[in-house]
């Protein structure tokens, strides 16, 4: 039961262009969404998040868009840089008893982004 799906295993982009990574989810209870970046031999690094009450959140070169009706979110990286080459995971969480739910994230399978100089 894959509640969070990243259907593109890999994405290749030229330096300076836009990278768009996509993520779909099925659980309507998810109310908080995050993107993480992972380099080999390192743990995932938090990039950006969005609450379900918003449809867009920006942080520098990174923008996350949320379309609740389509149960879809995307991460835009503009402009893309070679250092952005990594595996990108989207993750989601749902409210739980006691409200301390955000330690439990459901991750997608990841998308390998390669940015060519």
């Amino acid at each position, binding site marked *: 039961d894959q509640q969070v799906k990243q259907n593109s295993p890999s994405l290749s982009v030229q330096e300076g262009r836009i990278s768009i990574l996509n993520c779909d989810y099925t659980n309507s209870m998810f109310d908080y969404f995050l993107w993480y970046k992972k380099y080999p031999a390192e*743990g*995932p690094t938090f990039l950006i998040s969005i609450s379900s009450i918003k449809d867009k959140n920006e942080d520098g070169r990174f923008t996350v868009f949320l379309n609740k009706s389509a149960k879809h979110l995307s991460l835009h990286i503009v402009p893309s840089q070679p250092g952005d080459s990594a595996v990108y995971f989207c993750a989601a969480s749902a409210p739980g008893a006691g409200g301390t739910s955000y*330690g*439990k994230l459901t*991750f997608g399978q*990841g998308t390998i982004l390669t940015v060519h100089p």
Partner: protein
Amino acid sequence: DAGVTQSPTHLIKTRGQHVTLRCSPISGHKSVSWYQQVLGQGPQFIFQYYEKEERGRGNFPDRFSARQFPNYSSELNVNALLLGDSALYLCASSWSGDNSPLHFGNGTRLTVT
């Protein structure tokens, strides 16, 4: 500030053995979560602890257990190891668990032979 630290970084065990993995959260963080990541997949939730109490458990067998200590560090224990337990085990901490992003350590790579 030190990030989330995990030990050991690599471990090789034999089927049927027991393993203990350790995690120290970022200073001030009271919530610790454990994740298993197998090759080609995203991390999968195992446990969350907050203020030394278990707050969540993923779909893992009872061979997996964990605990959190008064200093908020945590241990993950796995009994009767199977070949399928070979994975990267990630620990993550957050300030309270509510609306605060998880910060991950670099993981422990467990190989079961």
